[in-house]
């Protein structure tokens, strides 16, 4: 408390109240011995620096220089050390002694640390200043800023060039992440080529930094680099560093951002009667009965709101414990963390434990040995519901369970009710068994580095063993559901699950990865030379074994009875890759930068003779701000750093759409089964024409860009433009028409081409206002792919060319009909000149959709389709993010916004067709619809609404893909907002901690978008709207270091 008052005093000090206030609050003796320091702060070239902070070391006693760089600071002692800082300059310590008053001049040196920052690139490291490719980096602070369960979720909106879409937000889910919308990138974790799943499930706290290779800088990964590369480096300890212990923990409450809510029982019943009458002119529902449901008071006529099963406070928790440090020879980082995340439905949980251990030790002066292990155990537990995805029944149940039904017979919680679809009745979930998924991963890497006596030359060798096991146990148990017999007060078994199902899938992956590498790096005067030459080989074995049984009892979990076995699936796959890696860098005076690199790469996927390819890259950089003309021009005061970059690289893409052994002729085993004379005989089928001429897709990427920094780093950023041209996309030569009667399909060859291009930019501004430090930044990425040419396209007529050609045309165009209105009356339908439904409009009712007859032929058919939007399944073409941080003393606040445009959502099934699956629909379909004033009177007048009149059998013409059902989405969501408070040092030290920070955080608090009325999240993609959307989360947490 006393401390706080002391702080307060010095705020006022600046305003001239110093004397009075200090006298009032503090001991008089402090003032009596004090010293007033006056001075000014300038740069090396004499520029006056306003806003510089002058702080008495070890206290919070701080003032800021005024607009002329002058400051005055009162200190209680006669000597002190002052720390002077200003953005863009290195902090400087000044010792002052004296009595009463002293004047000093502080000259600050420019801060070049940002340029000296180490950037991890493929098979090596460079400084930020010498990087010539388009490489974005994210460091540990930025990642742990948001408590995200998966790494890709932590990256949303943070990096230019990264596009994300959270199509599924269930616990443990990752965001779909791409680099520049090029496709799925390659992930490399601590030098080991890996997959998206490994990347996403890393412990976020264990990541030191992430580098994203967006252009030719990825070419060194050869055949797998065409879509860019994401490099992850985990944390290490430093030599001669005291042991540090860090704890990060949070607890949060989650709810769904949005999910379609089913209509009420009253609406549902009315809609049923209405649909019957619209369709057949009659219904079995009587007006009296419908009225009783509307009232909802009489027994048997009360509805049930199934959305109450969706929780608003599903818990998640996380704790990470890590320690790092080092002695003379050995340094280490050890970490353990656990995440637990519940879904909004009871009984659904995801948890993960991560372990990381990085140890390095040195033998003599030249040899360094390292062992890096990262392991995890992941559990995904859900009820064992029918169907492949156990989330489906829970999501589907929100609409599939009818609002006229109740979960329990007679509302007695001992008896789950027999309803429309018992599998979606939440009351049955607790009886339904389980689905337990477990993934266990261990990646162990042995490193060795030997420094030769030749200066700058070293050899490294690495061996990695990777093991991933996926164990999936499903037990769908039998149970009964009940109907209440009121007369006899009995609960009759009237349904339930009679179809027990038990499987165990045990799949594992083992990788062996070998690498050796020669590194050279040396400076000769102004010449800077470095190079890498290496060789890498990797192999993977994948084995998957599944047994399925039909257990005789619910109480035995073992699959050990032969007569219960139903199915056995056994899969074995092997693959192998090898490559030679090379790269050379030359820099002159830090101004002219040249990099030549590439890879000679081979893959098992292709037939002998077509396996190896060379993937070269070249990139150049020119740091203009280092030129003397620049320095002399005075421009350098404004633009302190400016670097031009250009790169070109060729890469490969193995993803050619045929299996690895497509070049092998022969027969496929296990296709079809026949029972011949009572015996089960497994079928075998001819493989058809082998694919012997297909090779990888060639991908050439060109990038130009520049990095800049203004006012010594206050404003910094980069701009890049890129173009990736892919040639050799697989296609068959369809000018050779083989008669279908000989049943030979021409194999695909490398014929077609496409091009992705775009721009991206990143800006960051850092400054201070008084004592408030803040940073704001933003980034945006625009990237889209265009088909360039295909093999000899043929079109019968100009319409076909217009409709079907892919020549030099953007990909991801959705075609549909243009909605121009709704029929207002039956007379209008009768007299309407255009045949909308292909049946002379005989199937239509008022409110049905009218489409533009573009070709004026009097009938709506596929000739009237026109482009109406973007793809609804791919990444958005335009992504953007904004973020900011403000700190004031111990308080810090950070936020980030993420958004996207140029993507679309089509609608289907549940959120388009009323009564789809004979189930409930979102209330907007039932209420905001065309209907008769008296639904029971077919002669009453029509009342307008947004949606067509209700029918149970879908009306084909209403459901055509059209602009009515299509939304071109834009959204901006508050991805994250976080308020933290770091306890003052005095308190922390008393408690023997070095730092304690408490925070509260909100994730996905709101989003501004144009699909709110559909009750779907803008990032989900299923047409029916039944994706598990991302969570809205409130977290509280703490970072503790000691």
């Amino acid at each position, binding site marked *: 408390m006393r401390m706080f008052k002391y702080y307060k005093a010095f705020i006022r000090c600046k305003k001239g109240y110093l004397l009075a206030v200090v006298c009032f609050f503090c001991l008089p003796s402090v003032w009596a011995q004090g010293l007033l320091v006056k001075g000014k702060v300038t740069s090396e070239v004499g520029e006056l620096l306003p806003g510089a902070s002058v702080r008495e070391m070890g206290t919070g006693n701080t003032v800021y220089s005024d607009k002329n760089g002058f400051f005055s600071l009162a200190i209680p002692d006669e000597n002190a050390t002052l720390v002077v800082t200003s953005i863009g300059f290195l902090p400087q310590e000044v010792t002052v002694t004296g009595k009463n008053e002293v004047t000093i001049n502080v000259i600050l040196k420019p801060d070049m640390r940002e340029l000296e920052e180490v950037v991890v690139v493929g098979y090596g490291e460079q400084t930020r200043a010498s990087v010539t490719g388009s490489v974005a980096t994210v460091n540990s602070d930025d990642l742990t800023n948001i408590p995200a369960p998966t790494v890709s979720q932590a990256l949303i909106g943070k990096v230019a060039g990264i596009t994300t879409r959270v199509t599924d937000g269930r616990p443990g889910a990752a965001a779909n992440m791409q680099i520049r919308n090029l496709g799925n990138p390659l992930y490399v974790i601590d030098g080991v080529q890996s997959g998206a799943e490994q990347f996403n499930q890393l412990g976020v706290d264990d990541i030191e930094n992430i580098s994203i290779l967006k252009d030719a800088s990825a070419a060194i990964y050869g055949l797998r680099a065409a879509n860019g590369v994401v490099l992850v480096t985990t944390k290490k300890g430093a030599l001669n560093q005291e042991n540090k212990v860090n704890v990060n923990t949070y607890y949060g409450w989650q709810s769904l951002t949005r999910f379609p809510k089913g209509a009420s029982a009253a609406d549902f019943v009315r809609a049923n009667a209405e649909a019957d009458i619209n369709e057949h002119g009659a219904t079995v*529902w009587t007006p009296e009965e419908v009225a009783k449901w509307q009232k909802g008071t009489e027994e048997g006529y009360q509805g049930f709101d199934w959305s109450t099963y969706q929780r608003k406070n599903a818990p998640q928790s996380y704790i990470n414990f890590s320690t790092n440090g080092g002695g003379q020879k050995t340094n280490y980082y050890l970490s353990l963390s656990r995440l637990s995340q519940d879904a909004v439905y009871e009984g659904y949980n995801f948890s993960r434990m991560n372990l990381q251990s990085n140890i390095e030790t040195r033998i003599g002066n030249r040899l360094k040995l390292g062992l890096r292990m990262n392991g995890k155990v992941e559990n995904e537990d859900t009820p064992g519901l029918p169907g492949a995805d156990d989330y489906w029944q829970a999501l589907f149940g929100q609409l599939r369970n009818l609002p006229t039904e109740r979960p329990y017979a007679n509302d007695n919680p001992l008896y789950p009710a027999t309803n429309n679809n018992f599998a979606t009745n939440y009351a049955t979930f607790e009886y339904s068994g389980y689905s337990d998924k477990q993934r266990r991963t261990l990646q162990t890497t042995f490193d060795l580095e030997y420094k030769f006596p030749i200066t700058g030359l070293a050899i490294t060798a690495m061996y990695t063993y990777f093991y991933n096991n996926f164990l999936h146990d499903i037990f769908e148990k039998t149970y009964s559901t009940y109907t209440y017999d009121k*007369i006899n007060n009995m609960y009759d078994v009237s349904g339930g699950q009679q179809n027990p199902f038990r499987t165990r899938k045990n799949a594992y992956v083992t990788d062996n990865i070998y690498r050796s590498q020669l590194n050279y790096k040396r400076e000769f005067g102004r010449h800077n030379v470095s190079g890498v030459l290496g060789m890498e080989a990797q192999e993977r074995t994948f084995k998957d074994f599944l047994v399925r049984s039909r257990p005789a009892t619910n109480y035995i979990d073992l699959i050990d009875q032969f007569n219960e076995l139903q199915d056995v699936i056994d899969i074995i796959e092997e693959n192998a890759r090898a490559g030679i890696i090379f790269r050379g860098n030359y820099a002159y005076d830090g101004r002219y930068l040249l990099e030549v690199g590439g890879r000679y790469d081979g*893959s098992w996927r292709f037939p002998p003779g077509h396996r190896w390819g060379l993937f070269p890259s070249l990139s150049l950089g020119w740091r203009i701000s280092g030129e003397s003309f620049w320095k002399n021009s005075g421009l350098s005061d404004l633009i302190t750093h400016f670097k031009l970059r250009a790169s070109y690289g060729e890469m490969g893409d193995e993803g050619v759409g045929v299996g*690895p052994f497509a070049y092998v002729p022969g027969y496929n*085993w296990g296709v079809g089964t026949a029972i011949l004379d009572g015996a089960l005989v497994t079928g075998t089928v001819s493989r058809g024409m082998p694919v012997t001429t297909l090779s990888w897709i060639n991908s050439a990427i060109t990038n130009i860009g520049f990095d800049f920094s203004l006012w010594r780093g206050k404003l910094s950023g980069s701009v890049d433009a890129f173009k990736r041209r892919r040639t050799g996309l697989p296609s068959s030569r369809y000018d050779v028409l083989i008669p279908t009667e000989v049943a030979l399909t021409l194999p695909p060859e490398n014929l077609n081409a496409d091009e992705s291009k775009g721009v991206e930019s990143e800006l960051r501004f850092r400054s201070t206002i008084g004592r408030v430090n803040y940073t704001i930044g933003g980034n945006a990425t625009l990237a889209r792919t265009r088909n360039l040419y295909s093999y000899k396209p043929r079109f019968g007529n100009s319409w076909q060319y217009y409709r079907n050609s892919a020549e030099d045309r953007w990909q991801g165009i959705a075609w549909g009909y243009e909605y121009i209105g709704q029929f207002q009356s039956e007379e209008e339908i009768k007299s309407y000149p255009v045949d909308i439904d292909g049946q002379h409009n005989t199937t239509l009712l008022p409110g049905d959709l009218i489409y533009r007859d573009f070709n004026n032929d009097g009938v709506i058919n596929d000739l009237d389709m026109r482009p109406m939007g973007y793809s609804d399944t791919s990444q958005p073409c335009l992504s953007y993010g904004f973020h900011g941080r403000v700190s004031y003393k111990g308080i810090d606040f950070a936020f980030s916004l993420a958004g996207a445009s140029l993507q679309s959502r089509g609608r289907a099934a549940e959120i388009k067709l009323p009564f789809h*699956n004979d189930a409930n629909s979102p209330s907007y379909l039932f209420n905001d619809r065309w209907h008769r004033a008296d639904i029971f009177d077919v002669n009453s007048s029509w009342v307008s609404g947004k949606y067509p009149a209700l029918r149970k059998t879908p009306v084909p013409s209403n459901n055509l893909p059209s602009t009515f059902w299509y939304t071109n989405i834009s959204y901006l969501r508050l991805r994250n907002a976080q308020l933290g408070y770091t306890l003052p040092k005095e308190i922390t030290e008393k408690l023997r901690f070095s730092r304690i920070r408490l925070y509260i955080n909100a994730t996905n608090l709101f989003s501004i978008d144009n699909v709110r009325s559909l009750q779907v999240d803008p990032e989900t993609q299923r047409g029916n709207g039944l994706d598990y959307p991302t969570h809205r989360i409130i977290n509280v947490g703490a970072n503790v270091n000691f």
Partner: protein
Amino acid sequence: MRKLINYIVQVVVLLSLLACEKWLEREPSEILLDKEVWNDAKLAESVLANLYNRLDPQGGFTVAGFLAHTDVDEGMWSGGLGDNNNKNTRVNFPYNYRNYWSYDLVRDVNLFLEKVDASNKFTADEKVQLLAEGRFIRAYVYFLHVRAMGGIPLILKTYIYNGPGDVENMKVPRSTEAEVYEFIAKEIDEIKDKLENANSKTRANKWIALALKSRAMLYAGSLARYNNLMASPISTPGGEVGIPVDKARVYYEESLSASREIIESGKYRLYNENPDRSRNFYELFTNKGANPEVIWVHDFAVPGKNHTYTFENIPRSMRESAGGSSGLTPALNLVEAFDYLDGNPGMLKVNDPDGEYIYYTNPEDIFANKDPRLWGTVIYPGATFSGKRVSMQAGVMEWVVDRYERRQNNQLGSRFKDGGLLVGMDGPLPNAANVTNTGFNIRKYLDSKAGAAQQGIGSDVWWIRFRYAEIILNAAEAAFELEQAEEALNYINQLRERAGFGPNSLTVLTTEKIRQERRVELAFEEHRWWDLKRWRIAHEIFNGQDNSITAEKWALWPYRVVRPGDPDKHNKYVFEKRVAPRFTRPLFFRMGNYYANIPQAALNANPLLVKNPFH
């Protein structure tokens, strides 16, 4: 020194590349090489198994398979209200309806024949048998083609593509419709005595081959005759479709002689194991033991190879899984095609001559004295399945003052205010999924074993491709067309006697009677569509007219009478005939449906192919 280093570098690079190439050599796990397959009789059989498995293009027991019966006047789709419901609402049959262009199967059979022929790993006997079996499969596949498409190119070998120059030789024109039927007959004549497997019901043998000939030649004969009786016969100038009328007689004779050979062999007889005629007819399809009637089947086994026909079609109240039920439901049209045992036509009596309801004590009483095959084919109101009675009631007729008020609601098993049943547990409901819409459920092929209606277990009932009763019907039709009426009458009476009519129940035979017998005996066995086509009456039956008694699907809905004042009528049952409410568009068969269209891709690739008429 420099040279030496250079040399070492070169050697190291070369060696490592060689090592790498070997490193990339990996073995596939699911691929058999040619030499492995044709080295081993077991694997040759495995190839055959794949071929046998692909011989039911309409699908047999798959959803597509039984949906096929809802396209004709046998049944109606009462399953989900989604996509399949277009069977009830479509304007007409599209021209690609039931087209068949399965040349990948033809190629695989030809490849099988060539590989067996070229291999020296089989004994001479094995080879003869395997080749004959392959040729039978090919003949059957061509029959599947010709019945749908008319004449098609007869491809009898495999082709190899080495470059665009090879394409010209691959273009084969369509054979005439007559040539294809003659090819089938000739192949069967050549192979029938080479086929072993005499007692097999799953692998081709002599009798299966003769059964194919019996059916194919009957089709050919009727096409030749009835096409030319049309006002304007359907044909192409090259004879790709349309068989000259003068061939009819020969084809009927060929068919009759094939049928007679089977009949006279004594290998098969009509199933007659259960004195209860109704149950006997049902068991004929589900008894996989010693079943003397079955000639060729697509067999199933649980576990190993099951099907979901029972799951999809079982009456609503008897289902054993969450979904499914009542997909295929018989139409009243078919139910009324079954005669009364006294020989009277099978119209059900719902009203007396004054237009008053006829009151039945039990719902099943209205079906009394019908052909017992009706019970064996259809689950009708009040009938039992697997010992359980179906609860089929559309609602209640309540007597209010001076007239009946129809009372009904949407809830299966709901009660009326008098405590009695309002709507049956099995429907019918007017607009609900997986509840019968016609008032009937299917019984034929429905499996009564416990678990057969569960998705996880399924049924092992076999799909019968040929059975003896069809041979008898083929023989009767052919004989009748050849003016051998007495022989024909004898066959029909045999069949009717087994069904439960007394001996010699018919004394006079007509074309109509033969066709009706075929319709009721072979219902839901994938005959109706092809029969109506070859008799050239499909366009008359499925005329697209509203309220047509043949083109609409009709329903029979039972109601319970609530009339406490009149004990003779109270709690009795009355019936209403109506067009099934979910069925909104009468079937409309156009002239262009007599032959399905040839896929555009095939026309594009082979200019020698001529289109079928009207397309």
